Every structure is written in structure tokens, then in C-alpha cells.
């Protein structure tokens, strides 16, 4: 029997079990699983960590491969650096598939003179795109580059066992965005302290929210939490 093990992330072990049960179509009581990380609610908004469980799926539901999507939906949010836990080098096959797949996407998007470079960057697999029309590839608030990145991760990890997150970048966009997000976080924190009330940041993706949490965790005068769902998920900065 081909037994597959799938990792689920959620706020608590309990929620992760619910999710696994729903996704695999196996009643909760019948799940055989191992707790990889019980998670942590954190303290004053720091060190929040998702619970992670590893579930055996011997049924091998036809949809089980789509699990990657689930893992991505939940990871990288309010988790700590430990979240990715990449062990060692990414395999050459994964780098090759990533390179081929991303090249096929950018070529077919009709972007002119694109170059794709894919390499193991330690925590992540970096997939850098150089092209003349970088604005078009990145899109409004990065929505296009984020969509490409998401599809690429799903496509690559359908064929290979999960190793580490593939991050698509273009002309240093990710770093610029992080800096912009930190600047917003800094100003919002200051205003929140001054006005003595919680302030909401604009909706952001998981990586950006994480950047905000990390940036403000050293500020003893505020705490941060995320609220809202999906596209509307955003960080709230609260004065202490």
C-alpha cells in the first residue's frame, strides 16, 4: 500500500486535525498522525507559531495531491522562521522543473526578452525573472507575480515531494516591497502609540504580514495580530 504522509498547518492541533479530516475525507477519530509542532499562541503577539501535524493518508484520495495548496494557504503567515525548516539543498529535479515551468509561463505571457534564473537560496528556492516589462509581470501590488508564484508552487509540488517554498522575484521587487511594508508598519506603530488606539494596516499577503510582525516584534510599545480572511487579511497594530 502506498502510504502518503501529508503535513497540515493550523492555529492549533485540533484545527489541523479538522482540516486533515475534511481534506482527506477520513473521520477524525480514524486519522493516524504525528504532531510535529504543537504550535504556540505566542506571547504579546510574538512567537506565534502554527501547529503542524503529519497525517498518514493510505486512502490516497484522488485529490490528495492538491494538499500542497492547503499547506501554502496556511504557511508563511504568522509563523516563525522555523516554519519552512528546509533540510539541506533543494534537489536538482525540483530546480529543473521549476525552471522549465516558470520559463514556460513567462514565455507564454508574451513578455519580451525574459530570463529566468532558479537557484537554491537556503530557506527558499529563488526564482528570479528578468524582463523588460517587469511592471506587467509584477502587477498591481504584486498580484500577478504572487499568482505566478502560487501556481508555480502548486504545479512543481504536484510532481515532487515538498522541499521548500519557491519564491518568484523580479527586479528586486520582493525586497522593495518588504522595505515599503516596514515603512508603513513603522509609521502605523508610531501613530497607534500616539493616538492610543489599534490601527489596521491595509490587507497584505502572508509574506508581507509576516514582515510586519517581525519588524514590530522588537517594539515594546505595540503588539500585532492578524485579522480578516483571505484577501482581506490584515495586521492590526495595538498599543500596549
Amino acid at each position, binding site marked *: 500500500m502506498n502510504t502518503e504522509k501529508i503535513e497540515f498547518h493550523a492555529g492549533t492541533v485540533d484545527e489541523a486535525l479538522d482540516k486533515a479530516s475534511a481534506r482527506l475525507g477520513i473521520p477524525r477519530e480514524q486519522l493516524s498522525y504525528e504532531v510535529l509542532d504543537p504550535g504556540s499562541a505566542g506571547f504579546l503577539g510574538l512567537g506565534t507559531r502554527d501547529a503542524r501535524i503529519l497525517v498518514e493518508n493510505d486512502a490516497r484520495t*484522488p*485529490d490528495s*495531491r*492538491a494538499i500542497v*495548496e*492547503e499547506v501554502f*494557504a496556511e504557511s508563511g503567515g504568522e509563523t516563525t522562521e522555523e516554519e519552512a525548516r528546509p533540510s539541506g539543498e533543494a534537489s536538482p529535479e525540483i530546480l529543473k522543473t521549476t525552471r522549465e*515551468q516558470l520559463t*514556460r*509561463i513567462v514565455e*507564454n*505571457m*508574451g*513578455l519580451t526578452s525574459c530570463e529566468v534564473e532558479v537557484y537554491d537560496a537556503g530557506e527558499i528556492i529563488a526564482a528570479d525573472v528578468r524582463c523588460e*516589462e517587469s511592471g*506587467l*509581470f509584477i*502587477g498591481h501590488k504584486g*498580484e*500577478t507575480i*504572487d*499568482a*505566478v508564484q*502560487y*501556481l508555480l508552487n*502548486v*504545479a512543481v509540488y*504536484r510532481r515532487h515531494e515538498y522541499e521548500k517554498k519557491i519564491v518568484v522575484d523580479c527586479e528586486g521587487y520582493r525586497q522593495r516591497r518588504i522595505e515599503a511594508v516596514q515603512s508603513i508598519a513603522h509609521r502605523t506603530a508610531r501613530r497607534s502609540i500616539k493616538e492610543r488606539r489599534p490601527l489596521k494596516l491595509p490587507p497584505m499577503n502572508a509574506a508581507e504580514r509576516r514582515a510586519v510582525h517581525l519588524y514590530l516584534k522588537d517594539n515594546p510599545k505595540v503588539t500585532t495580530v492578524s485579522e480578516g480572511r*483571505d484577501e482581506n487579511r490584515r495586521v492590526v497594530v495595538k498599543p500596549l
Partner: protein
Amino acid sequence: MPQLKRLLEVLAQSLVDDPDGVKVTATELESTVVLELRVAPDDIGKVIGKQGRIARAIRTVVKASAVRYGKKVIVEIVD
């Protein structure tokens, strides 16, 4: 708009178990292109995703590309 049709095929094929089951038909009305995506019945979930997340990402990428050609595009997933 063969380029947009091809892009949608490429994206869908990368996500499904049965790439040969991916069929895209394109209808063009003035500057709007309507793309209808069909996949093998078992693969439908793989192009839609949980809460439509994959479908949304596909639409975002195809739309971005359409801008390049000065077109509007509608992607419909037919089941």
C-alpha cells in the same frame, strides 16, 4: 487570440493529472476574449482549488497577459 489561449492551456496542463484532457476554446468579441477551459472530470478541483484560489490565480495571470495585447479576457471554467 492564440497567445492567451495557449497561456491558459500551459497553466492548466501544469496543474492537472491528465494534460491531454485540457481543452480551451476562445471566442473573441471586439476587444474581449472569452476563454472556456475544460479539463478531465477528475481534474476539475485542481484548476479551481480550495475556495477557488487556483482559479483566481489563473485568471490573474491570464488577465495580466491580456493587458499586453490590449485585450480584456474572461476565463470560464466549464464543468
